[in-house]
């Protein structure tokens, strides 16, 4: 079908999925758990509890609560976070900036290493480098991120004394302005080299940890796509023409191998997103994932709901973009070559 029709159909389904997700999320927090618990102090009388209930609208019938919450999500009132002791909407941007920076850094690491390693292994098929990269890529998918992060901490932080935890040195951090909320970018914009180095230094271990699994997936995809493409006829034809191997690799094989890789890169987004929860706990990174973990442990339903909705919507949209891109590329490949 036309690409345009496909995109339109997906876009039309999107709101239904979002509403469906919101219903599930809302129902979850009301059937189990105690949405009011986070707002109580441990020595309150029943009357006081009732007052708190009223303040947060928890005495309303459930459908009303849902509509109030859903409406609030759209208009910008995302509730009160017990964990942060502030409105969710107020705290969100900073934490988002921290997580985004981490995820992007991890993605950069994963993409660079993945494509590089995959090409390296795929082009030396079935020889030692190939086997090594294959082992690496399989172990990457099975690697528990929380363990890998702790291992890195033990080796690099405690053992060797390199790389700090947390996001930054507080003095350096406070010395620059923060227009974007991304420490690295802000440091560059401020022209503050030591702040930039500080930012990257703090990003290193968490980004490698977070990106490890994705690196492995991309390596594997890249490698197998490359191998498959290298055996295609037209590559043989190019070789027959007498083109040097390197040129064959660069011009033909890699291009076609990129298509499934692009898909995987989009999909890895989901893994990166989920990995942030654990990585932020281990490296004391002040982002969304850590906030969600605290919210989960302390029963802060407002934060949980906002986080799940946000990540789901993001996930949906990224998947949409990936699917559309894939369909676009795929169609042309079928028609073009």
């Amino acid at each position, binding site marked *: 079908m036309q690409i345009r029709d496909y995109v339109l159909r997906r876009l039309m*389904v999107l709101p*239904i*999925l*979002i509403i*469906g*997700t919101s219903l*599930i*999320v809302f129902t*979850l*927090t009301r*059937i*189990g*758990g105690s949405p009011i618990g986070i707002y109580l102090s441990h020595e309150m009388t029943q009357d006081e509890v009732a007052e708190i209930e009223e303040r947060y609208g928890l005495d309303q019938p459930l459908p009303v609560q849902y509509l109030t919450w859903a409406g609030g999500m759209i208009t910008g009132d995302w509730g009160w976070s017990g964990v942060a002791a502030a409105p969710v909407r107020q705290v969100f941007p900073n934490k988002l900036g921290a997580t985004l920076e981490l995820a992007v850094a991890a993605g950069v690491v994963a993409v660079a290493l993945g494509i590089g390693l995959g090409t390296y292994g795929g082009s030396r098929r079935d020889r030692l480098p190939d086997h090594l990269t*294959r*082992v690496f890529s*399989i*172990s990457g*998918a*099975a*690697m*528990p*991120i*929380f*363990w890998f992060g*702790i*291992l890195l*901490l*033990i080796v690099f*932080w*405690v053992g060797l004394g390199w790389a700090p935890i947390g996001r930054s040195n507080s003095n350096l951090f406070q010395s620059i302005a923060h227009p974007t909320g991304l420490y690295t970018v802000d440091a560059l914009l401020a022209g503050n080299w030591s702040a930039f180095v500080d930012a990257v230094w703090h990003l290193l271990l968490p980004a490698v940890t977070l990106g490890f699994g994705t690196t492995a997936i991309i390596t594997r995809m890249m490698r*197998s796509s490359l*191998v*498959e493409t290298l055996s295609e006829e037209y590559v043989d034809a190019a070789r027959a023409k007498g083109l040097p191997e390197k040129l064959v690799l660069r011009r033909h094989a890699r291009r076609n191998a990129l298509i*499934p890789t692009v*898909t*995987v890169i989009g*999909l890895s987004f*989901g893994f990166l*997103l*989920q990995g942030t*929860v*654990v990585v932020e*706990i*281990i490296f004391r990174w002040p982002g969304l994932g850590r906030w*969600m*973990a605290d*919210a*989960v*442990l302390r*029963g802060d*339903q407002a934060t*949980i709901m906002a*986080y*799940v909705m946000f*990540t*789901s919507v993001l*996930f*949906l949209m990224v*998947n949409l973009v*990936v699917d559309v891109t894939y369909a676009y590329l795929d169609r042309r490949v079928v028609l073009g070559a």
Partner: protein
Amino acid sequence: MAVDTAAGRSSRTLSGSLGTRLRRFGEISREVLRNPTTLIGLLLIVGMVAMALFAPLLIEPNTPNPYQMPRDWGALNEPPGTPGHILGTTQQGGDVLYGVIWGARTSLRLSLIVVSVTVVIGLIVGSLAGFVGGKVDELLMRLVDVFLSIPELIFALAIAAVLGPSFGNIILALAAVFWVKYARIIRGQVIHIKQNEYVDAARVIGDSKLRIYMKDVLPNSITPVVVQATLDMGNVVLIGATLSFIGLAEAGLAEWGVLVSQGQAGISAGRWWASTFPGLMVFLWALAFNLLGDGFRDILDPRTESKR
């Protein structure tokens, strides 16, 4: 995007007569044993499952509940090599080796329960959607889509969070999240079969839907389901351990994720053992099932064969 399984496209099925099936099974087993990575996976699995099954013989079970870590308030934070605690103790005096061994048992329980339950649910939902079709199919697949729109870990996290910290709730949360893939596989198979010519022929002969189901849908589905189930045996433990690590399991449970989490506090003081060994087990478990599952996929799915 079903990049993960080969639903509906596998022709290396286990359909046919019993004799054919047994022969196929023999062939597959041989191929599994021949491939080095798959073999390693299988050996690891055998080793860990044996450890799980023989746990009470390997190490004295804790009373009254062997799935609880033993606590020894007089032997806190002992390093590995201490007499009686070859892998050291935790900050509550629990023997790390006990945690490793009984944690395997816990993981086996977890993965078996979750995978069996999710396969059954997925079977039911997928068959319903495929056979009944129409509005029911639409509705169920929308539900599947909604479930898929929430990232797995986050969904499981939210469910376990609202239910409360306990092992049973982690099982529930994982089951609620993992069933969707099977539903899709089965539904895909059902639809594929429905469209297939020789089913029309069978219907002409008068075969009931149930017979078609038993004779064609199920055997054809076994392959992708087996691949997915094998992978899930690993992934369930991986995500389950992550949930426990975050703090959603009950206090003092002999479970790898719980132990890694507890051991974190000691890291800055140089106490590495309480986190490292249990975490290694999670890795090996997930690795083993991934190796085997990938091996199955390579062997059973002709599409990927060309890559070898």
